[in-house]
């Protein structure tokens, strides 16, 4: 039943395995450091282990076997868009001339890299209806911060520094209020209506001359399309505020609707969700930030620009972008400045563009339709045995609630999630959004087959049935994973965040 080795013993740490004299020879044996530097600037002891290459290979191979990834099984993780990560993307990012390019290589000698970034940026603009994107920010939260800094700079430029309120619906991702606080904005939380949407009336009550930004995701984290979006963006604009689109859920509407057409002024993308960048265990992500025309000047630096080639050999070229030459523009006086050391998570630009090439406009449009199809298919099957509090056509994800089951059996959303681990599935997102009690948030993505969805639905149904006949068994899950439930209280009360040498 389980797909994990039932080996409960943790691997010894790499620090507990080393032996002096077991070094690998990757570089020439070097002269003593004192040959080059005075002793007082040199460190004495370097307390790191020497291990043979084989020992290191076995160590990390074993660690990989104790790790669940998309390549291992289905990830119904709401809000995270855990779709298949095509291998060709990684192969392209590993082409030596893309992988080994130094960021300070002059523009004339990095034309391929700049062209990739330019094509990606232009694609995002068209696909999401924005005037420009910066590929600078490193992740979604980072892009949110960039967007709010842009808003702050924009209002300062207009002499409207009194605008210090950011409106965030109660279904928003936790990063929204955290990012707002980092820009000195005060957060106003907006209660959702009984349909799980932003209430236009409630919104209008909090709008005013102090409104800076309203941050929304659409579809929202309940998986519901904000059908009053046009009225919402109009009301915020009338109050002089800006609309921000949290692109975490962009996989639901790519090619079928655009934040720009809805009236959003600012947005970000999580290319590690929508555009198949591997999550890599929690990063590196990639968070392009997009803006409407009135905000282009404020984008982070540098920004990739293009101009017609002066002496291009047109006959050898294959695409319109091949007629152009590109450069990094650092000279942008109104810019908020750079968000990171260098220009972009470029390897991720490569992956995202490779994915776009694999799909084209038609393919990307179909991708989100099938993502929505998969989510709704699970939803209509799951509502036979779990509550689905917002029972209507959802987008790429939906929420179910174990509240009734908990009352009846004591089994909570958390227990269901852990029981899924025993059955070879990743757990759904739990207890988010905060407004749904005992929430399970399920997002299957478009890359899963009907067979996989049926297996998952079957496992979930079986767990709910077992909860009614033998709740203790479900509450004791997981049983078949390498370890059982963790003592998180101990971890937080007596933090052990590193290994220490025995004698140090």
């Amino acid at each position: 039943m389980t797909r994990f080795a039932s080996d409960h013993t943790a691997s010894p740490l790499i620090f507990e395995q080393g032996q002096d004299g077991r070094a690998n020879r990757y570089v020439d044996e070097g002269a003593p450091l004192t040959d080059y530097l005075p002793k007082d600037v040199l460190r004495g002891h370097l307390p790191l282990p020497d291990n043979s290459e084989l020992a290191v290979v076995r160590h990390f191979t074993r660690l990989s076997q104790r790790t669940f990834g998309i390549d291992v099984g289905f990830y119904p993780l709401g809000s995270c868009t855990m779709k298949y990560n095509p291998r060709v993307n990684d192969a392209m990012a590993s082409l030596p001339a893309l992988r080994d390019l130094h960021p300070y290589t002059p523009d004339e000698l990095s034309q391929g890299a700049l062209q990739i970034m330019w094509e990606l940026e232009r694609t995002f603009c068209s696909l999401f209806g924005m005037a420009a994107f910066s590929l600078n920010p490193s992740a979604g939260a980072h892009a949110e911060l960039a967007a709010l800094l842009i808003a702050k700079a924009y209002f300062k430029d207009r002499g409207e520094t009194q605008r210090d309120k950011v409106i965030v619906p109660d279904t928003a991702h936790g990063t929204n209020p955290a990012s707002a606080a980092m820009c000195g904005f005060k957060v106003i939380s907006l209660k959702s209506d009984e349909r799980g949407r932003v209430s236009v009336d409630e919104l209008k009550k909090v709008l005013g001359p102090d409104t800076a930004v309203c941050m929304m995701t659409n579809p929202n984290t309940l998986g519901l399309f904000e059908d009053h979006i046009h009225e919402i963006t109009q009301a915020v604009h009338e109050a002089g505020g800006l609309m921000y689109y949290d692109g975490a859920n962009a996989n639901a509407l790519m090619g079928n609707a655009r934040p720009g057409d809805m009236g959003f002024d600012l947005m970000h993308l999580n290319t590690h969700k929508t555009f198949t960048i591997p999550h890599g265990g929690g990063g590196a992500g990639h968070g392009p930030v997009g803006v409407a025309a009135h905000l282009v000047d404020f984008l982070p630096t540098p920004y990739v620009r293009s101009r017609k080639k002066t002496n291009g050999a047109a006959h050898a070229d294959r695409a319109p972008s091949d007629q152009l030459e590109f450069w990094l523009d650092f000279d942008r006086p109104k810019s908020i400045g750079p968000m990171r050391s260098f220009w972009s998570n470029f390897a991720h630009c490569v992956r995202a563009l490779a994915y776009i090439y694999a799909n084209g406009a038609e393919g990307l449009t179909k991708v989100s339709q099938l993502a929505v199809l998969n989510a709704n298919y699970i939803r209509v099957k799951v509502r036979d045995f779990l509550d689905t509090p917002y029972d209507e056509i959802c987008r790429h994800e939906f929420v179910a609630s174990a509240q009734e089951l908990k009352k009846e059996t004591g089994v909570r959303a958390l227990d269901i999630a852990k029981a899924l681990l025993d059955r070879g599935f990743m757990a759904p997102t739990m207890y988010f959004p905060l407004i749904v009690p005992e929430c399970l948030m399920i997002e299957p993505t478009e890359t899963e087959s009907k067979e996989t969805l049926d297996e998952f639905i079957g496992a979930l149904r079986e767990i709910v049935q077992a909860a009614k006949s033998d709740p203790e068994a479900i509450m004791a899950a997981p049983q078949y994973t390498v370890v059982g439930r963790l003592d998180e209280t101990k971890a937080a009360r007596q933090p052990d965040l590193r290994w220490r040498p025995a004698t140090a």
Partner: protein
Amino acid sequence: MAQPADLLYSKEHEWVKVEGDVATIGITDYAQNSLGDIVYVELPKVGAHVAQMGTVGVVESVKAVSDLFTPIGGEVTEVNGELENDPALVNREPFAGGWMFKLRLSDASQTSGLLSAADYEQLTQE
């Protein structure tokens, strides 16, 4: 756990014990129970002047975090250093060993807005 009758209570689930011009403050059994296993308590600095209803610290459980308000204003004279090593004291003995800080009252009349044990009991029943 019953609410000790000799204490005063706030709607934000703090308790106050007034002895002369010094008040001892902690969080109630109801509060520790709803937070779950407390893993960390951030306390005010000794000597700090705090205003009534000001945020003076933070109480963290494994997966929740809650601001610590002071139900009355004054100068912080002592904090419970034990909590640094053993935050679970707040779970075990919320009204005794789990006290959080003491302050010298700036205005004794501020206690008039606080609840009695019976009133607080009723509040938690609602």
